[in-house]
């Protein structure tokens, strides 16, 4: 699937269609400070549509029990629904096999799983791990912990002023000690869409496995893990209209089978004696303890919901919003966009001359507008742009052009207050 690398021509969905979708999201009817909520913090967490809420309620009211354990009716139903959710996620990212879909508590948990399960087994003293300047702390800190423990080294792919990875430099970082690559698919702070397919092919030609942090890509574009050929792909439910506390680690079966378990406990074992424990097969080997069953089933419903709209339609609507918002912000004197990559998802980081992002966030909230302000868990990246923080508007398919107008009016108001 190449939609990932190619910016689609902006063709906004007809307004009536967006209005119908918005009606699925009860929270969008909220008023904040007496103004209609304008929710532009989707990169932090997206909102949940009624069909997903209903699915959670149905599970909890008629299907709940523990899974994989008992033979009674409810346990059978819950197990079936949980495994059905796994298949939904498998189809959603086009994994070859359902056992390649591991339920985790989110992206952070998924990356930590790979660090413990793969990294601690296969990465040793003097080995090198390649990361990028764009990474979220979730894809930096676990690898630093590993590097410290093992005496391994982290190499960092630099970026240009637009916020694009320097692919030449990436390729130059490889040597015989390179053992692993971790790269985000879409930057949460800047919106940059990285050429991960090309990067994976380059790494594989040198026998190096690649983990892709897909937290910001999965909600916004069609993902095909077989086409990307990544070894690992991590994402979170709460950024794709699903519940919190659930996420996915996709891993190639061959990789997952070679890895050591991350957490020990129930469900992940085959047999236990005090002398020796043998582990269960994948995916169960990596799902110790009772998982968030309701959340997994809710995530399955979220994948269905997004698929019914169509990921290509979602990407097109969001790009139309991005184009319009970019044009509008560029027309405001004293406002600068941070992150101007050619291939971008609908994330707009900006700074206003003379106004601290915290003050921007507070004043916009007064107008009912929700944006994120801060370092976006990407301090190395902020340092690269010599800012301590930015304000970030991040769009979902349920946002409207009128909401972009509200943001622009809000920014003008901030400038007026601080004039």
């Amino acid at each position, binding site marked *: 699937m190449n939609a990932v690398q190619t910016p689609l021509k902006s063709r906004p969905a007809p307004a009536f269609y967006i209005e119908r979708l918005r009606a699925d999201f009860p929270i969008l009817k909220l008023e904040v*400070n007496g103004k209609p909520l304008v929710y532009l913090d989707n990169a932090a967490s997206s909102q949940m549509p009624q069909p997903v809420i209903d699915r959670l309620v149905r599970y909890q009211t008629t299907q709940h029990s523990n899974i994989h354990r008992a033979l009674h009716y409810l346990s059978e139903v819950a197990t079936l629904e949980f495994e059905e959710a796994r298949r939904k996620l498998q189809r959603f990212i086009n994994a070859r096999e359902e056992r390649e879909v591991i339920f985790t508590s989110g992206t952070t948990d998924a990356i930590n799983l790979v660090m413990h399960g793969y990294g601690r087994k296969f990465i040793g003293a003097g080995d090198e791990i390649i990361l990028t300047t764009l990474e979220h702390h979730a894809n930096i800190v676990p690898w630093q912990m590993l590097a410290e423990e093992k005496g391994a080294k982290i190499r960092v792919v630099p970026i240009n002023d637009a916020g694009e990875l320097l692919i030449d430099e990436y390729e130059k970082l490889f040597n015989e000690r390179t053992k692993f690559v971790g790269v985000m698919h879409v930057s949460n702070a800047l919106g940059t869409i990285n050429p991960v397919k090309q990067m994976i092919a380059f790494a594989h030609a040198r026998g190096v496995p690649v983990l892709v942090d897909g937290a910001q890509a999965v909600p916004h574009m069609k993902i095909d893990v077989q086409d990307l050929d990544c070894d690992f792909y991590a994402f979170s439910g709460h950024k794709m209209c699903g519940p919190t506390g659930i996420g996915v680690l996709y891993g190639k079966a061959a990789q997952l089978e070679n890895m050591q378990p991350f957490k020990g406990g129930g469900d992940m074992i085959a047999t236990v004696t005090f002398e020796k424990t043998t582990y269960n097969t994948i995916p169960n080997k990596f799902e110790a303890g009772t998982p968030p069953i309701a959340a997994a089933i809710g995530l399955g419903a979220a994948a269905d919901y997004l698929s019914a709209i169509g990921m290509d339609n979602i990407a097109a609507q969001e790009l139309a919003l991005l184009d319009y918002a970019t044009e509008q912000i560029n027309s405001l004197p004293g406002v600068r966009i941070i992150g101007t990559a050619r291939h971008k998802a609908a994330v707009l980081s900006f700074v206003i001359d003379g*106004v*601290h*992002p*915290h*003050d921007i966030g*507070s*004043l916009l*909230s*007064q107008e009912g507008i929700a944006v994120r*302000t*801060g*370092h976006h868990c990407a*301090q190395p990246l*902020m340092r690269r742009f010599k800012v*301590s*923080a930015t304000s970030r508007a991040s769009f979902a398919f349920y946002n409207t052009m009128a909401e972009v107008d509200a943001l622009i009016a809000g920014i003008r108001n901030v400038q007026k*207050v*601080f004039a």
Partner: protein
Amino acid sequence: MADYKSLYQEVILDHNKKPRNYGTIAHASHHADGENPLCGDHISVTLKLDGENIAAIAFEGESCAICKASASMMTAAVKGKTCADAEMLIREFRDMVTGKLEPAASDHIGRLAVFAGVRDLPSRVKCAILPWHTLHAAFSSVASASTEAEDDPMRTLIGSA
């Protein structure tokens, strides 16, 4: 409901634009750096004690308007006061922004009451309190303060705000 309009009052905007006592003091007797790692804001406070009296005080750094105005008004409020008076004001300011003290119930808060609005905005309480925090650290000759430091005496108070 949080009211940002009342938070961004003229006084605060004015102190943000034209901060008083901005800079550093040469030959300071006390100094501390304060940082809010959650947003990267940092300020430093230098002061000169003459016996028990704060003879001179200044601050500088990079921060949001709430933090800067708070620092500016703090330096104006404690200059010429004794350390003990300043420490009391630190306590009262902290109690006010964490909702434990009504500004009207204090004889010392005065114009600092404009910061009472942050009490309903947990994420902004830290901005308002950082300068005070840093002043407290300077008195105790703690070289640096942080809104997140484990050993910071005010951490739990702010954290639970």
